[in-house]
């Protein structure tokens, strides 16, 4: 039925089966659209956010998807700037994931503000000292970059590619892609950092506040490294899931292993720096503010276990698997490791936003907890469905995996 | 590509370029941006308050009897803010939480917008709008008919207070009509006036010179929880705090719960509920035993301190003998739960202190205390000789105003006035008391009343809500066939009325405000119209005059054209000052010197209240005439009701006839009210004993009733005590108040003072059972 659109030389499932799958995903997306509509029309009173938790699930989701989407910029950085050619076999896929992540982030940011119609004030009346300004600018710019990176892939669709102008345009974009990738990498480094900076600069919040290097709090750098580490993991994870669903090998193991290795060592680096940062924070920063580190982990769910889970279970364990040759080449270890690593990133983003707000700073204030409601849950999880949707469409109609034909003769 | 398509493309390009260089996109962007800041024309558009000339109007707040001066900020004809009037002798610029929210009483919900006549069943909420003239003629026709039938005395009036021209006008209406049944709502002022009459022989209210006192012994008075004239006490408290830092002042709060007053006091004495009189007498014991009392005053100006012999030669017990015998610190410690050493220490401190002052009236003073309890606490002031002294107590007479012409009583009126009061006040049962609202429900529900009431007028009171044992009161009042409410708001009582003749709110009318309870100087305030009436309401004084003029046979007593001229006439020479300053203060007032004596039969201050004997109260036990502690026997057996329930009165919840405005409800903590659930405070130890955790749902049961509550654990409550906030649980008014929490009066019954007959219930026995 849609065979004319499917890239040549690859096999795809029958259209009805595909339609059913897309329909299934669309129902979830529709639900998310309804939730978003509710929040936009009725206002944020439809969420469980409150004056103590001005930030909640949405900001966590934002920070998380941007960290997970870090695979795009970092793979692009390694492919175009460092010239590691192997990564071109997975770059398309990383770009799609990045595109989904960043577009989701923008939509969620749009949901999270009280006056969405005025959200452009962040650009027009920008306060250059605000980390959020930097985040907004960089995310939207980088989203443009991702769109530019994604467009040639779309244009490579069999039917579109037949149009000469389209073909030329995609070719020309490809030729200068390194420039875009470089700009994208520049932007990405900044906004990944700025996201960490958003919390790190809050000197009224001992949990989030970090000491500064130059104009940036240490969280700035930690966020960059953690995004560089977990982004590729997410790319690997999604690749493996796609391979599982399509029952095809799509990317050669050496590419995956290389990516895993880079990710693993970055995780090691991240963990080392994070440890130093945490120790400094616990030993110097906090006591200066009159609080002890255990004050920062007062009540369930914010006990010290959340730190152990983040750095130990979701940090050290996957790092060890990824840096060992046997680990990264064994799917039964690699996949759990990537899952743990991604979960670690999400947990880190959650802790840095929600726990920062959850801890009462005034000594006579009460501890209050926050649990997102359905509007927040549905819209926060929608990016994953959206990702499945876009991957399904792209995989079916676009030449996403350069090695697919070779691996599936 | 065809020429058409190309051309179209070119056209679009051109159009795009042209539009870019035209103002259209830029201007639209700007306008939409402005629109996104106002949302003009869609439901989320925010109001833009109109500007205009600012006018400040001075008046006096009448939302509570405190009598604070207010200045109302107006923009053209809209009142936009109420502030305390600078320089006013009571509040000097300060204002309380209720007063500052007063605009809600004017503009807010539940106003009765015009005269209403009941259309459906009682309390059903179905009303028929009716004109003022029709309403007044229907009511006067009905009242004329009752009068003609010879049952004039069966018409009663319940008024929020009994002083001031408006209550007096109601009283006059009844007097001319022929009914003795003018009933005012009770407060601790009733007991205090009674006590003062007996001990000092004066028809006056107790004036506490808080401003100058330097050692304040408060027997459960919520000094900064709304007692007396709240702002005035706050200011005095601030002065004490400044002095206390220098070691020159001290406040001791005797109360079972750490209220705000207790928290601010220098010392909190957590006493067993209801045993304040015992403690006062314990202090007296120490003071007398150690001869620390003011010998000059006690020996020369007091009667009944030592034993005395009457004309028949019988020796009567004096205060000294009784106190020394019955109230040793050991005994008192047993009763009150306060250690002997503390009792002795506090008594010595009090006696030694410069300008000591003992204050009584529990909480805000909305419930009377026992007569002998008042005497016990007041006696402490006498013992240390601070009567009529700076920083002491004094009897504050009513400000004199022009007397009204006498009531022209016809035969019917005379006959009616000769009937006994329905509430038995002033009768043989309770000879010294003036008005006993609390007797109504018992007499009516058991049919033991001397007669049945056939009509009721209610003004400035909301007995369906504020009375103890709410259910019994509702049952009693419901049995009265004809009720007229004069309320400005659709309160619980108005809901049960047959007619509502809505009066102006305090910001729409003139009214005189007599000296507030506890004040140290005589003063009259003038409340005046700040804005034009919002609705088709009428000044209650005008309504009463109109009724008086149209009821058959009593018009001669209502010669005034309207209330304003009546008020002017009554205030006489003070009117100009009142209009100019907003208040009239008796500048020349100073309390009488000891040497000028007291107005009692003995000419002295009487510890032994001979007035009771003269009023016809006969007892063989001399203790019945002396200050003493007689345990209030609460209903219910301690086995089934092991806990003691006390009310929590706070400034943030108006619990009287004026309902709580939403601004106040907004400030109420979530440990008092959460959604629609009320929280009772219990000590964690008590909570543990009954298996209750923070926020647990429980049934609070008392002999009077049971209500569903949540528990809040608070270390500031005495173990074994449950404390319930008052002011919630309205069933009337609007959605901002109605249905929130429960009314404490549903679970607090009445307890009759044996002498005065007043309801002196300060709490109830209770049990708390968790609901799983």
């Amino acid at each position: 039925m849609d065979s004319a659109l499917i890239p040549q030389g690859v096999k795809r499932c029958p259209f009805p089966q595909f339609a059913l799958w897309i329909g299934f995903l669309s129902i979830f997306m529709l639900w998310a659209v309804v939730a978003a509509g509710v929040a936009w029309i009725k206002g944020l009173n439809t969420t469980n956010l409150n004056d103590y938790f001005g930030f909640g699930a949405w900001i966590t989701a934002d920070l998380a998807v941007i960290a997970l989407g870090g695979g795009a910029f970092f793979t692009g950085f390694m492919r175009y700037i460092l010239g590691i050619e192997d990564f071109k076999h997975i770059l398309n896929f990383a770009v799609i994931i990045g595109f989904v992540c960043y577009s989701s982030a923008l939509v969620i940011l749009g949901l999270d503000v009280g006056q969405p119609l005025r959200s452009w004030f962040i650009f027009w009346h920008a306060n250059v000292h605000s980390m959020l300004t930097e985040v907004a600018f960089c995310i939207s710019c980088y989203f443009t970059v991702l769109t530019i990176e994604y467009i040639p892939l779309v244009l490579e669709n069999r039917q579109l590619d037949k149009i000469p102008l389209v073909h030329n345009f995609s070719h020309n974009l490809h030729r200068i892609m390194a420039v875009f990738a470089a700009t994208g990498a520049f932007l990405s480094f900044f906004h990944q950092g700025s996201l960490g900076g958003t919390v790190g600069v809050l000197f009224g919040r001992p949990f989030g506040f970090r000491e500064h290097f130059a104009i940036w709090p240490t969280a700035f750098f930690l966020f960059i490294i953690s995004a560089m580490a977990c982004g590729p993991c997410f790319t690997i994870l999604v690749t493996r899931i796609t391979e599982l669903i399509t029952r095809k090998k799509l990317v050669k193991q050496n590419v995956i292993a290389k990516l895993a290795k880079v990710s693993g060592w970055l995780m090691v680096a991240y963990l080392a720096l994070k440890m130093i940062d945490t120790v400094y924070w616990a030993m110097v920063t906090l006591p200066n503010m009159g609080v002890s580190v255990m004050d920062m982990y007062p009540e369930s769910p914010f006990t010290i276990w959340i730190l152990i889970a983040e750095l130990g279970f979701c940090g050290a364990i996957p790092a060890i698997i990824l840096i060992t040759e046997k680990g990264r080449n064994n799917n039964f270890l690699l996949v759990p490791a990537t899952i743990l690593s991604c979960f670690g990133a999400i947990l880190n983003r959650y802790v840095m936003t929600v726990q920062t707000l959850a801890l009462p700073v005034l000594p006579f204030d009460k501890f209050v907890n926050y649990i997102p409601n359905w509007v927040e849950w549905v819209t926060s999880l929608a990016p994953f469905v959206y990702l499945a949707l876009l991957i399904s469409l792209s995989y079916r109609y676009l030449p996403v995996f350069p090695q697919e034909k070779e691996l599936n003769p | 590509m065809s020429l058409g398509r190309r051309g179209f493309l070119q056209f679009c390009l051109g159009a795009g370029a042209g539009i870019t260089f035209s103002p259209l996109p830029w201007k639209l962007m700007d306008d939409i941006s402005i629109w996104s800041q106002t949302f003009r024309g869609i439901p989320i558009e925010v109001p833009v308050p109109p500007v205009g000339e600012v006018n400040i109007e001075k008046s006096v707040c009448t939302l509570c009897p405190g009598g604070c001066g207010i200045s109302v900020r107006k923009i053209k004809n809209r009142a936009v803010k109420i502030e305390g009037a600078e320089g006013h002798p009571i509040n000097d610029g300060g204002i309380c939480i209720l007063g500052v929210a007063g605009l809600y009483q004017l503009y807010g919900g539940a106003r009765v917008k015009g005269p209403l006549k009941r259309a459906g069943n009682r309390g059903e909420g179905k009303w028929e709008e009716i004109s003022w003239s029709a309403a007044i003629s229907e009511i006067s026709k009905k009242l004329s008919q009752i009068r003609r039938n010879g049952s004039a005395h069966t018409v009663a009036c319940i008024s929020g207070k009994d002083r001031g021209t408006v209550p007096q006008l109601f009283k006059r209406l009844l007097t001319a009509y022929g009914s003795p049944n003018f009933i005012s709502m009770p407060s601790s002022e009733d007991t205090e006036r009674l006590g003062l009459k007996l001990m000092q022989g004066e028809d006056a209210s107790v004036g506490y010179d808080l401003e100058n006192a330097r050692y304040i012994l408060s027997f459960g008075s919520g000094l900064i929880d709304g007692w007396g004239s709240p702002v005035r006490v706050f200011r005095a408290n601030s002065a004490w705090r400044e002095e206390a830092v220098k070691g020159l002042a001290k406040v001791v709060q005797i109360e079972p719960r750490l209220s705000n007053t207790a928290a601010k006091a220098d010392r909190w004495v957590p006493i067993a509920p209801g045993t304040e009189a015992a403690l006062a007498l314990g202090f007296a014991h120490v003071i007398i035993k150690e001869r620390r009392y003011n010998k000059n005053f006690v020996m020369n100006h007091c009667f009944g301190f030592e034993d005395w012999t009457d004309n028949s030669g019988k020796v009567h017990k004096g205060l000294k003998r009784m106190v020394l015998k019955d109230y040793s610190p050991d005994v008192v410690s047993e009763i009150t739960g306060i250690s002997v050493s503390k009792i002795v220490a506090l008594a010595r401190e009090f006696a030694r202190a410069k300008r000591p002052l003992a204050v009584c009236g529990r909480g805000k003073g909305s419930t009377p205390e026992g007569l002998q309890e008042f005497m016990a606490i007041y006696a402490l002031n006498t013992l240390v000789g601070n009567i009529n002294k700076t920083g002491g107590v004094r009897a504050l007479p009513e400000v004199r105003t022009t007397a009204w012409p006498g009531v022209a009583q016809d035969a019917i009126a005379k006959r009616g006035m000769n009937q006994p009061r329905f509430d038995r006040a002033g009768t043989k049962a309770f000879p010294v008391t003036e008005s006993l609202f609390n007797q109504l429900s018992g007499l009516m529900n058991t049919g033991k009343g001397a007669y049945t009431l056939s009509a009721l007028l209610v003004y400035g009171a909301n007995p369906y809500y504020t009375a103890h044992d709410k259910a019994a009161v509702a049952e009693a009042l419901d049995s009265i066939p004809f009720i007229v409410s004069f309320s400005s708001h659709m309160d619980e009582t108005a809901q049960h009325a047959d007619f509502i003749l809505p009066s102006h709110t305090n910001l729409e009318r003139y009214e005189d405000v007599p000296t507030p309870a506890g004040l140290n100087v005589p003063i009259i305030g003038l409340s005046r119209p700040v804005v034009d009436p919002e609705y088709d309401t009428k000044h209650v004084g005008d309504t009463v005059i109109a009724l008086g003029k149209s009821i058959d046979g009593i018009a001669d007593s209502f010669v005034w054209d309207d209330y304003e001229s009546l008020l002017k006439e009554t205030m006489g020479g003070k009117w100009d000052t009142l209009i100019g300053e907003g208040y009239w203060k008796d500048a020349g007032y100073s309390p009488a010197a000891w040497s000028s004596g007291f107005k009692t039969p003995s000419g002295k201050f009487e510890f032994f209240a001979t007035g009771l004997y003269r009023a016809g109260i006969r007892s063989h036990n001399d203790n019945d005439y002396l200050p003493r502690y007689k345990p209030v026997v609460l209903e219910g057996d301690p086995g089934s009701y092991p806990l003691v329930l006390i009310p929590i009165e706070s400034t943030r919840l108006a619990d009287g006839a004026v309902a709580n405005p939403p601004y106040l409800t907004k400030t109420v903590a979530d440990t008092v009210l959460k959604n629609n659930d009320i929280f009772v405070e219990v000590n964690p130890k008590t909570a543990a004993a009954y298996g209750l955790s923070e926020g647990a749902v429980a049934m609070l049961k008392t002999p009077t009733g049971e209500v569903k509550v949540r528990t809040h654990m608070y270390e500031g409550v005495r173990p074994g005590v449950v404390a319930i906030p008052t002011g919630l649980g309205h069933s009337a008014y609007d959605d901002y108040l109605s249905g929130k929490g429960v009314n404490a009066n549903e679970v607090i019954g009445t307890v009759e003072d044996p002498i005065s007959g007043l309801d002196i219930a300060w709490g109830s026995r209770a049990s708390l059972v968790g609901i799983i």
Partner: protein
Amino acid sequence: MKEEHKEGAHGHKEKYKYGMVIDLDKCTGCGACMVACMTENNVPFRKDESNKLVSTAWMRVFKATNGKSYPDIDVCYFPRPCMHCEGEHGHAPCVSVCPATATDYNYETGIVSQIYTRCFGCRYCMAACPYHARYFNWWDPVWPDKMEKALSPDVSPRMRGVVEKCSFCFHRFQRARDHAYAEGRREIREDEYQTACTQACPADAIIFGDLNNPEHKVYKLKKSPYAFRLLERLGTNPKVYYLSTRSWVRRAGDNYLAGERSK
């Protein structure tokens, strides 16, 4: 006389530095300041305000206890307006983070402003403020019956979706300044500019004035040995001082490590 136009360290003209001193020994927790503030500043109310996490009160009175058991327990109330933090050179926690410049530190008065039509509701400032002094408008403001008549034209009612906070009744400053200008004066007297809560406080526990002006009451009071500020150790440099003679209350004003000495 006051020192004219102090030059701050950062080179901005500092004409006034308005601040507050709240005497916690006098404060009774009555709540009049909260309501005075709400009625002055057109703060709306809803039918159920018992969820304090979404209930707007620019001036909020916190309750603190000394943590002891019966009968040694003690209670103190902390009225908490916006602290109008100066941070370092006007670097208040909230001002620096606002992405759209909707909140601003005014060097002339020391007041942190909030412009509602500029704010787009990202709530970053709320995350930054450790005092919870900032409130979000979760709902459209609705006034019942004729309550709209009681709205003051001096303060703009806020729309849903923006953050609001205490402004030290800045409109009263504007009013006072207009009055002074009309009389040809440039200086504003202490009694001419007082916040609504200060004016209302029945206990006279709130004192307001220019912290730089030796003739103002606050100037002297802030130097009291009993004076402290909330969370001073964070470096927020707030302009609201508290007074208490009770040492546990002063300690409750900031975080201290176990065994650490407080002021």
